[in-house]
């Protein structure tokens, strides 16, 4: 039995189709991340699962029960919002117990659940405070606690870390991962941050224009993106692309030929253009050049030092390419450097359909 199932889900606002016949099955205890740029419908999908938006077509099942017409509070979900959405006039304790009081739970049961959640999230000293007297990180803990006390099977997160500063975001990310390991609940997590997606997810659903482009585990998404959009979206800095024609010896890009021998799939010969993609971290320099099938000498146009590593820009066959080198390496603009490509770590896409070959 799936924990959450979405069947043929569609949502239109007037003539605008926001979600177009989505199907997802989420397993018991799975951490699913909905990832996409703004406006792709990922938050809308989450709101539909929560029952906060009325859908145009399709069904939603939670724990095998059809909840398509059920109220949000009756679906067995807890939700955490980007803006925390804490009730400002209530203390932390009041915020945590509000839903339980609405459900008419007995006093001692409410106390038991609130203190358990407070203990898990380490917010016991804050229970008597108002949200206004809390820091951003503390507020988000309370918001998570509000979902926790509901004792539900499914947690929904709507960009919960986006309002926090970078350091806090990294800390809370780790805590969320630990929390998931401890609670083993099903979690659906919406974000536009690919680092969050890659680090937290069991599976990632990459969304675009109300459709799911690829639904797979992080490793698969990173190493075998199904199309150009996913390939471009995942990875920071983004993948390099070159357009060329597939020939007998390899892909002809401008005046160079990039070999394809070693690529996992056999590329069928056709006259159409194909797009060659290679991630900046998969371009070999220095010692690792030995394994590279293809080598070329390039001139460095621009250097972006980032501490741990340095990003260098160059031109290869007329296309802008960036590649990652060790941060300790001394590299200046105008330097000549030899780079290498390995077809096993490259990606090939049909230029017309944008699908992976």
């Amino acid at each position, binding site marked *: 039995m799936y924990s959450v199932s979405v069947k043929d889900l569609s949502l239109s606002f007037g003539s605008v189709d926001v979600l177009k016949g989505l199907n997802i099955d989420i397993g018991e205890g799975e951490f699913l991340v909905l990832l996409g740029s703004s406006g792709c419908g990922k938050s809308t999908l989450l709101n539909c699962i*929560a029952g906060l938006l009325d859908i145009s077509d399709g069904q939603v099942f939670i724990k095998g029960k059809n909840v398509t017409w059920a109220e949000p509070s009756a679906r067995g979900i807890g939700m955490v*919002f980007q803006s925390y959405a804490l009730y400002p006039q209530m203390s932390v304790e009041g915020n945590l117990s509000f839903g339980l009081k609405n*459900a008419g739970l007995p006093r001692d049961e409410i106390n038991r659940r609130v203190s358990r959640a407070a203990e898990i999230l380490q917010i016991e000293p804050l229970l008597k405070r108002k949200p206004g007297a809390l820091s951003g990180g503390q507020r988000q803990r309370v918001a998570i606690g*509000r979902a926790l006390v509901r004792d539900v099977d499914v947690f929904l997160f709507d960009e919960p870390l986006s309002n926090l500063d970078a350091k806090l975001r990294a800390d809370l990310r780790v805590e969320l991962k630990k929390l998931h390991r401890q609670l083993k609940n099903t979690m659906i997590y919406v974000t536009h941050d690919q680092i969050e997606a890659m680090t937290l997810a069991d599976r990632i659903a990459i969304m675009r224009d109300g459709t799911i482009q690829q639904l797979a585990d992080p490793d698969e998404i990173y190493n075998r993106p199904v199309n150009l959009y996913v390939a471009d979206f995942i990875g920071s800095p983004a993948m390099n692309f070159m357009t060329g024609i597939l020939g007998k010896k390899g892909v002809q890009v401008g005046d160079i030929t990039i070999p394809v021998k070693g690529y996992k799939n056999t590329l069928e010969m056709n006259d159409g253009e194909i797009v060659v993609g290679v991630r900046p971290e998969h371009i070999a320099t220095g010692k690792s050049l030995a394994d590279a099938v293809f080598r070329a000498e390039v001139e460095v146009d621009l250097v972006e030092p980032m501490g741990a590593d340095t990003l260098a820009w160059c031109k290869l066959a007329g296309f802008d390419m960036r590649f990652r080198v060790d941060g300790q390496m001394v590299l200046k603009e105008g330097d000549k450097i030899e780079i290498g490509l390995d077809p096993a770590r490259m990606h090939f896409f049909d230029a017309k359909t944008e699908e992976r070959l």
Partner: protein
Amino acid sequence: MVDTVMTEARGPKPQKAVTGPKIIIYTTLTLLAIYYLAPLYVMVVTSLKTMPEIRLGNVFSLPRDVTFAPWFKAWATACTGLNCDGLSRGFWNSVQILVPSVVISIVVASVNGYALSFWRFKGANVLFTILLFGAFIPYQVMLYPIVIILREIGLYGDVWGLVIVHSIFGMPILTLLFRNYFSSLPEELVKAARVDGAGFWRILIRILLPMSTPIVVVAIILQVTGIWNDFLFGVVYTRPDSYPMTVQLNNIVNSTFGEKEYNVNMAATILTGLVPLLVYFVSGKLFVRGIAAGAVKG
């Protein structure tokens, strides 16, 4: 020369104590304050004078023998028509009209504004437009139709008839006020409350209204001053026994037997204006904050 100035500059920029613009600003403000306060001064001074002293004609002079008799007369014994119990009757009538009108209009308008901003039902925008349109219809057009309506439902001349009229006429502007204020609150708050199992009323009462103090204060001030100062509806829809304070003030001032008692008239006028004045003094700061909060979004 420029260089030395630049290197010496450090810390807060020195301010000149007296500058041309400052003199102009303060002079203008002082003159305007005097202009606005002079009538009030004349009223207070006159109300404390005896009639012989008033007849001397020194409008701005301070009273020689201070007397509070005019105030007592205005409040308790001045005659209007057959009643000789002063403004006190009108004051209590006005209170009886004011309190239920303010409460009803604010309660209904807050529910309206809440529904219009968070529970987008079909036709919500049309309804809101119609409601707003009501704010622009001149009262005079509706005077007589309302007389007929009140007569038909048996409330003509009754205090409650006036309460209903005030509540209805306060609705457009108050609904707009509450709708705009609620629109400025994060929608996720309502979503969170829905996940927590709170329904339409519980969200309003437990979550939103406790956050709405500034806008409720604005609504109270608008309604208290508006309803208290109303003359037209009061004189049309009530009978002499239940005239509000403003109508009674008019009747006292315009009663003509013997000489005009300026001191009593002044005292009566100040008494009538005390309630809105009090409301402004008590809640001036909250008023500004609330108006600003409602104006940010919408």
